[in-house]
Structure formats: C-alpha cells, structure tokens
C-alpha cells in the first residue's frame, strides 16, 4: 500500500527577533545579515509556550485540513531536538493535548533531518498497516538553546512547528523513494555538549554555556552545500527519474545561500526550489513542513507533481524523499 501526505498545518509564534535588533546588538549592517542568510526575522515562542504547544497548534490545522478525526490516528511522531522535557517524549504531550486516545507516540531526534526521517517512518507504518494514519510533527523551540553572544546561531535559528497527517495513497502516488545517510565523525560540528549522559550538567558546564548550541558554521555550510544536491540526485535516480522530472524541490531551510548554491550545482533555476525562511528562519525539523504548507498555500504544488524533500543537519545526517502529490 502506498502512503502519502493527506493534509498539512503550521504554527509560527508571534514573537520575533529581527535583523534590525541583531544589527543594533552586534554592530553588523542589516543588509549584510540578510545577504548572509536570506532571513529577515525569526519567530520566538512566548515564555509560556513550549515545544508541545507549537506542535499541538500545527497538528490541529493538519487534522482539519486532512479531514481526520483524532481517533483515526494510530501513531504520533514528533521530530524535535528541543522537546518540552528530556523525558518523557513530547509526542506524549501532543497525544494528550489533541485527545488522540488510540495512538502510540514517540519523539524522533535527527535534528534538521528529523522531518524527512519521520516521513520515512510514518509512511512505512501506513504502508505496512501498522497504523491507519500517522500524525507527524516537526516542532522546535530552538531560541531557548542559543548563546546570546553567538550571532551565527542567533541569525539563523527560530521557533515553529509544521505538521502533516500521513495516510493511504493511490498506486503511484505518495512516497515513492527515499535515501538517507550520516557521517558521525562530524558529530561535533553542531552540538549541545552538556546535559546528556556524556557530560551531565554541572555549575561549571552552565558557566561555560555548554548547554547551548555550538556550531562550526564553516563545516556545516560546506556539508550542507555538498549534501543537498547529492542526496536529492540519489533519491531521484533511485526512483528511476531525472532532475527534469521533478516539479518542486523542498529543501531544509537552513540558509538561503545554501539553497542557491545547491540550485547552481544542480544546474537548476532557483524557482524550482521552495525558499520559505525569510519570515521565520531555520526551524530545524519544522522547516520542511512549514515550507511545504506555504508552497501549497501559494498554489505551487498541483496534483500529480513530483516533489523532492531533503533534510540535512547535526549528526551530521541527511535524507531525501520523493513524493508524488495526490
């Protein structure tokens, strides 16, 4: 049985961090900040909001748009690296918040590749009749893990959630191919070092700000530029297709410059790519579903279109899926 996306929903917090504020704080011109990232503002969750709040709001919209009642959901998957608590899974709070009684739930941590991995897992569950429908949410409150003195990360990362309902698709539609990979030797290129079992939090780790994101921007940018095109090409070949058969590319929204560089490398016009980070920044696992939802709203995706979604990020890990839109 084929499986695909039945409906989408998003939630973007109203709070924001603008380039004007960053310019004033760090003394870098506003134009330069936009040139480096393609981002004008990032959304910031309100103090009383946590990851599950964003996830629940996005999920309600996805359930409504897919005409899905909560009791039809067999599994709730939340892709996140900024869950409400270290334990339990944020998916449990989403299940509770939506009143989804019959579903199992788990969190999926693959950072910016999380949503694509979640699509693979969720579609597999539907295809193998393990769940009639799956609720998959990418949700992040990254703003609380950023170092207030690190412009590189403040410039890029924002909060948000994007949800999809996965269910049966007609033959030849839905998820047609996938590919994934990782290179754990680069685990420290983007890392939150303390607070886990390797280095539990202490007064010293807090003083050294090791519970906050540390990113080697150069290494991550180089990795992202290489992998975006390479992974997309692999999944296209796996499906027995060519680049010309793909109608829309929806890459992880890390930085506009990465997407532009990938388009150049693939020899494709930027117009074939969804670029949707100007107003919300890099929302990690939420980025692709937010971009998908916005592309649908703009009428960029039509029945029969072939889409390639590529996620890549901390780990480093990556994955691509090729879907035919029903």
């Amino acid at each position, binding site marked *: 049985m084929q499986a695909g996306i039945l409906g989408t929903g998003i939630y973007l917090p109203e709070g924001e961090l603008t380039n004007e504020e960053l310019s004033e704080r760090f003394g870098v011109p506003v134009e330069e900040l936009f*040139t480096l990232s393609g981002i004008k503002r990032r959304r910031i969750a309100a103090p009383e909001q946590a990851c599950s709040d964003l996830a629940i709001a996005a999920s309600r919209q996805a359930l409504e748009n897919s005409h899905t009642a909560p009791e039809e959901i067999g599994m709730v998957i939340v892709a996140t690296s900024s869950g409400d608590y270290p334990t339990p899974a944020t998916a449990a709070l989403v299940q509770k918040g939506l009143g989804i009684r019959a579903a199992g739930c788990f969190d999926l941590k693959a950072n910016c590749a999380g949503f694509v991995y979640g699509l693979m897992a969720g579609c597999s569950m539907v295809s193998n009749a393990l769940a009639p429908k799956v609720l998959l949410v990418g949700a992040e409150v990254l703003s609380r893990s950023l170092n207030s003195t690190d412009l590189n990360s403040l410039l890029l990362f924002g909060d948000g959630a994007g949800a999809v309902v996965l269910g049966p698709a007609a033959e030849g539609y839905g998820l047609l191919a996938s590919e994934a990979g990782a290179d754990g030797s680069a685990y420290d290129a983007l890392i939150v070092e303390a607070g886990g079992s390797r280095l539990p939090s202490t007064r010293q780790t807090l003083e050294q700000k090791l519970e906050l994101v540390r990113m080697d921007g*150069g*290494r991550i940018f180089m990795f992202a*530029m*290489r992998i975006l095109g390479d992974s997309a090409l692999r999944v296209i070949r796996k499906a027995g297709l060519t680049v010309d058969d793909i109608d829309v590319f929806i890459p992880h929204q890390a930085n506009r*410059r990465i997407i532009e560089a990938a388009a150049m*490398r693939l020899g494709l016009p930027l117009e074939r790519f969804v670029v949707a980070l100007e107003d919300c920044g890099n929302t990690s696992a939420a980025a692709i579903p937010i971009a998908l939802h916005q592309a649908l709203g703009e009428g960029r995706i039509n029945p029969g279109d072939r889409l390639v979604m590529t996620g890549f990020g901390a780990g480093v890990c990556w994955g691509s899926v090729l879907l035919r839109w029903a």
Partner: protein
Amino acid sequence: MSAEAKIKQLIVKVSKGMVKEDMITMDADLRKDLGLDSLTMMELLVMIEDAFGISVDIEDAQAASTLRLTLSYLEKYLKP
C-alpha cells in the same frame, strides 16, 4: 583548459558575474579586492572540488586568499 583558466571561470560563476575575468590577477585578494564574502568562498571551494574531482580540507581552502594560493593548494591535491 588550464587549472588557472578553470578557476577564473568558477570565480566569475560563483560571483554571479559581479567579478569579471580581467579583475582576477594572481595576487588579487578574493575577499578584499574582489568582494567575495565568506559564504561565497565556501561555494567556490565546493565548485573547485566538483570541477577537479577532489575533496579539499577546509583549512587549506580558507588560507587560499588569492588565485596564486588557490592554485598552490590545488597542485597538492592533484599530485599523483
């Protein structure tokens, strides 16, 4: 096509035409004189890797601020 000519071509491409080929002298600084920012320098590195079929250490690339220095590290990677 020589390596020098190829890299000049790539510099023009990565700058989206802002840099003209006759501006690229052996010792013109790619950032200070030709205006390539840090991200464009990394894009150039990936394009050089693709064009020559090599994988370059980012530290080598970051030290290559001119065409002359770029050709110098390239020679190292292309040595049989």
